[in-house]
């Protein structure tokens, strides 16, 4: 763009200012809040946040790293064609309570720019790190460190909900008790329990796509336990069992990660599977879901630019921490961080300006 001598005297009406600002990345936009009161109000406007999020490139080049009770923003650079990919820490997010005291974060789950965090003193909080907004959630029972959580949006009731899965393990069975908290009523309610299936610890982080969270789960019947795709719909508040790609049936699953495609936000899965000594890796995109639970998967060749996925490997295997796998580029990025600490938790992240409505 040419530089102009005189100041621009064009006044842009609100809707055209929105056209421009909704295309500015979240981090820059938040920094520009102090431009004027009008801009500050716009950045915090819910309808603007929606439009902005729709324009955000959804291919994750951002990752959150939770380590040593702190949350860091990591930028991943994997330009198509460059030989190596790299990742670096660009910022630190601070979770604060109402007294502006910094809070230690133990664990976190991400959905569309919002985080559900479990703090060191066992509190539960929903947090938008972009705007610093928090909503502390009252527990019904005390939180158990082994609980799993998921955050999702119910677009029928227009409110956010949190799913909590509490596992009770004895010699014979694993029982999973589920309850849901919704932002509208500010309360928890039981939605049932089951011993038919269970989710393993290292698969406890589900993948949230458009109102539904998905996990790789196991049927509880006699070994060999069968893998399947478990889904929870935040509108109907029901679990459903969905089929995995046929190739995987009855195979040993060495590693599997759920993710979403860049453009159309479709659920996809990267898995290494096989039997005996022969294993291979593949990527599938979920193309169609029948009401019976039959899911159609399409195997994709991963060399097309659009099919690059960023997968965070959170396996508790010593050499595989701090590793981001860029499937499609076939690159592995090792994330350096100075702390000598327990294994960091990595989450793919898409910033959102959405406001968390304050409750009572």
């Amino acid at each position, binding site marked *: *763009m*040419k530089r102009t001598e005189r*100041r621009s005297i064009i006044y842009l009406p609100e809707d055209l200012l929105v*056209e421009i600002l909704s295309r500015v990345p979240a981090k820059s936009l938040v920094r*520009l809040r102090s*431009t004027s009161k009008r801009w500050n109000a716009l950045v915090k406007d819910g309808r603007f946040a929606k439009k902005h999020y729709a324009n955000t490139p959804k291919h994750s080049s951002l990752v959150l790293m939770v380590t040593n009770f702190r949350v860091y923003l990591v930028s991943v650079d994997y330009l198509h064609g460059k030989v190596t990919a790299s990742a670096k820490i660009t910022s630190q*997010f601070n979770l604060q309570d109402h007294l502006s005291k910094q809070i230690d974060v133990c664990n976190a789950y991400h959905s569309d720019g919002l985080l559900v965090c479990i703090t060191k003193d066992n509190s539960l909080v929903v947090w938008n790190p972009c705007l610093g907004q928090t909503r502390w959630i009252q527990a019904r029972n005390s939180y158990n460190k082994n609980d799993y959580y998921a955050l999702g949006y119910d677009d029928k009731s227009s409110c956010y909900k949190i799913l909590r899965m509490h596992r009770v393990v004895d010699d014979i069975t694993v029982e999973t008790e589920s309850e849901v908290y919704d932002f509208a009523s500010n309360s928890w309610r039981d939605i049932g329990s089951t011993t038919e299936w269970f989710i393993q610890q290292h698969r406890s982080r589900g993948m949230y796509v458009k109102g539904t969270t998905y996990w790789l789960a196991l049927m509880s019947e006699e070994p060999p336990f069968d893998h399947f795709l478990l889904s929870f719909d935040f509108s109907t508040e029901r679990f459903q069992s969905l089929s995995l790609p046929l190739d995987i049936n009855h195979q040993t699953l060495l590693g599997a990660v759920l993710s979403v495609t860049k453009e159309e936000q479709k659920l996809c899965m990267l898995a290494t599977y096989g039997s005996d000594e022969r294993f291979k890796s593949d990527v599938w995109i979920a193309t169609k879901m029948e009401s019976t639970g039959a899911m159609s998967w399409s195997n994709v060749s991963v060399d097309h630019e659009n099919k690059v996925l960023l997968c965070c490997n959170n396996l508790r295997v010593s050499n595989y921490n701090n590793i981001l796998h860029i499937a499609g580029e076939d690159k592995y990025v090792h994330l350096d961080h100075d702390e000598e600490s327990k294994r960091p938790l990595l989450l793919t992240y898409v910033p959102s300006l959405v406001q968390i409505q304050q409750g009572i």
Partner: protein
Amino acid sequence: MSSSKKSSDGKSSEIEEAVASLTMPFNKILLTSSDGESFEIDEAVARKFQIIAHMIEDDCAGKAIPIDNVTGDILSKIIEYAKKHVVEPDEDEDEEAKKKLDSWDAKFVEKLDLETIFKIILAANYLNFEGLLGFASQTVADYIKDKTPEEVREIFNIENDFTPEEEEAIRKENAWTFNG
């Protein structure tokens, strides 16, 4: 002559546009800017401006259409862009063509100053030319994303209506955006 069916499916309206550009090459439309400059363009190009496309479909487009809100210099730039974008290449099917067009777009906007781009945004909005509105908006967004609030106030001619205390409070909230 012209189809007045409005398709809800984006893909088939693209095909309709492409067919229109093939079967109506000799239909010319005359656009007159607010300062009296006239531009004769193909109907296919004129249809990129939704307000004109609707006029054509409702049969109220005469041979000459006055564009009251847009001056000649801006209108000529808009028409230049529209001509290049009559048919948008599909990224998946024709990567080569998409790259060439992106490169042309970059050169197109490189030569323009910010004031002209703002005027283009206003005009593209008035004409309902979505493609150019999006592209010009993205250009400004890319331009300001690394600027400080002070620089942005200069660009948009905005007065800072925060007190120093208020501004400091906001900066504190956004501390994470200032590093890295």
